[in-house]
């Protein structure tokens, strides 16, 4: 039992059985998170970042998913709970907001009704009381004229307002863990800034632990305390944001940094892509999943990258808190000499 941390995910596996074989959507994933802190999980589609978080919510119950490992939340292993027990926690202790707030809200019911439903399912209160509570929440998340907006339908809300309403729905039962699955990806940048501000403000107020799933390293840099980079269902780099994003040690993280030019940086940085395509989660080869796309694997002696999957171990920089899954013997040096200079000059300049 692990009581040190509020949330502690231990060797989580989510496997789907399909006609073509077993899809290892998430494999051997471990992390911890404390109240009031934010973990940013970064990865591309198919990296397992959403699947693993849905497993914490128990949303895979009733599907073909096979889930193993432990998810300790406040001393309880969520994976051992029965479906009715898990249902009582969903929406109350653990809440979730999704990428596309328009499709995540039911088009036929008013926004107020849908939020009130979330409240009433866990609290035996009258409709009138629930309405009062919802209006309070709507006001808290910055929706103007909440009394009137209560009776509005999702399609009458703007994108930003919808996501605010989703946040109100998620936080109405004062959950201790909030999973935000790409909460701003479908929104415009100026609205994204508003929503991120709101999340930070509310996190302080409610002391919520947040898992922020995103593909945007900028969002992680600004929102998260810890960063977890996922590739092909596994964590490849994990540690405090200030470590992972300033002294990245895994070539995939380097690639992510170099393929998105920074708007505030110099205008003449090249855009260095990661070659190749995302891997299949079926029949994974024995070695490092990133090896086929890794431009640095030639620096590892022998066939190590192809034959042996590296373990997630403390790297050379940042001590035991910064874990990487890579065979490179001296990633820090390679980053300093080859990558940082060519790829992200602003970062090396700052040092």
């Amino acid at each position, binding site marked *: 039992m692990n009581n040190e941390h509020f949330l502690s995910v231990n060797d989580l596996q989510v496997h789907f059985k399909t006609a073509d074989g077993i899809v290892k959507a998430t494999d051997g994933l471990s992390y911890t998170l404390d109240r009031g802190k934010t973990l940013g999980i970064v990865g591309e589609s198919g990296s397992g970042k959403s699947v693993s978080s849905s497993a914490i*919510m128990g*949303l895979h119950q*009733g599907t073909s998913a096979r889930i193993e490992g432990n998810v300790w939340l406040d001393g309880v292993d969520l994976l051992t709970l029965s479906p009715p027990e898990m*249902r*009582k*926690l*969903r*929406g*109350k202790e653990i*809440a*979730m907001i*999704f990428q*596309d707030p328009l*499709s*995540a*809200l*039911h*088009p*036929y019911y008013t926004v107020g009704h*849908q939020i009130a*439903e*979330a409240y009433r*399912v*866990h609290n035996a209160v009258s409709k009138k009381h629930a309405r009062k509570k919802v209006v309070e929440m709507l006001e808290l998340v910055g929706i103007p004229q909440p009394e009137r907006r209560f009776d509005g*339908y999702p*399609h009458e809300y703007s994108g930003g307002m919808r996501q605010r309403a*989703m946040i109100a*729905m998620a936080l109405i039962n004062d959950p201790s863990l909030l999973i935000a699955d790409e909460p701003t990806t479908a929104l415009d940048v100026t609205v994204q800034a508003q929503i991120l501000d709101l999340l930070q403000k509310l996190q302080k107020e409610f002391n919520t632990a947040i898992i922020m799933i995103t593909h945007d390293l900028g969002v992680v840099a600004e929102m998260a305390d810890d960063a977890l980079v996922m590739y092909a269902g596994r964590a490849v780099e994990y540690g405090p944001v200030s470590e992972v994003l300033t002294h990245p040690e895994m070539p995939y993280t380097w690639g992510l940094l170099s393929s998105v030019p920074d708007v505030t940086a110099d205008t003449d940085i090249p855009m260095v892509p990661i070659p190749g395509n995302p891997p299949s989660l079926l029949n994974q080869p024995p070695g490092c999943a990133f090896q086929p796309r890794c431009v640095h694997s030639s620096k590892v002696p022998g066939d190590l990258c192809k034959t042996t999957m590296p373990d997630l171990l403390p790297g050379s920089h940042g001590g035991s808190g910064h874990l990487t899954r890579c065979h490179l013997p001296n990633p820090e040096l390679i980053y300093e000499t080859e990558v940082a200079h060519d790829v992200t000059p602003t970062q090396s300049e700052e040092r």
Partner: protein
Amino acid sequence: MWAYAARRVVIGVMLLLALTLVTFVLFFASPADQARHACGKQCTDEQIAVTEKALGYDKPVYEQWGMFVKGLATGREFPADPELKKTHPEFITDCDAPCLGYSKTNGKTVNYLIGKAAPVSVSLAVVAVVLWLAFGVSLGIIAAVVKGSIIDRGIVGLTLIIYAFPTFFLGVFFLKFVVVKWGILAYPGYVSIAEGGVANWLNNLLLPGMTLALVFLASYVRMTRAFVLESLGEDYIRTARAKGLTSRRVLFKHALRAALTPLVTMTGIDFASLLGGAIITEQVFAYNGMGKLTVDSSQAWDLPTIIGIVVVAGAFVILANIIVDICYALIDPRVRLG
């Protein structure tokens, strides 16, 4: 919404008039001699000429159509002959507005004929639609919830097998076994509610209604199943589950409401087309509904009756569509009529 309905009604009326015009033109374009058919086989040329004049068949098509439209608005008299009216008022048949015409073949106004036949078809359609919705939708939901199981495959397979049988076979099958052999129900024959009360009316409609419903059952099961599955895959279902709702509430409150909306359209159109008559079922059970009237009047070249049926059946379809659209706006807040 009312402005929308009013606009749709206006368009519908214009559509109906166009429909009658097309029917007129088609009939007069055919080589058959209308007056001869109306008068009967034994008529002399002279009698045919009189009939032609009396029914207005000597006039050009557009004039006849004009008279028809006028009759719809103000009513007509058959034959339209002021002199005959003075001498022999008993030969004149009054046809009040909205006058659909006069069937010389039957010696009755079309309004009378349709007035007799429509309640039969409407009753049959109502019973059938209730049956197929009740069974089709519930079986479809069950199949969707237990997707991939034996029950799912059984429901879908069985309804498909039933669908494969022709209507007349099902009808005759029911008559032979349920009525004759097992004697569960009496031989059906139409009894109106006014004559025999609701129970009697329903009792007599059960078999033909079931026959008709079975035809539609398979498609409603499959559609319901598909819509429910689609709806269960929506993001808002995930949201509902993430809230901690029970699976029952997720299904009934969140999934079904969205899933069943498209069925409103299908039901409305299928129901409306049945109001115009279920030809085979009516034949098998010897019900004198709109379907039978259609067959009889077509065979007799009874133009006025056919036009009357076209107008009434068309009106049913148009009305059903307007009602479906209004229902949609009531169910789905995103739909704005206008």
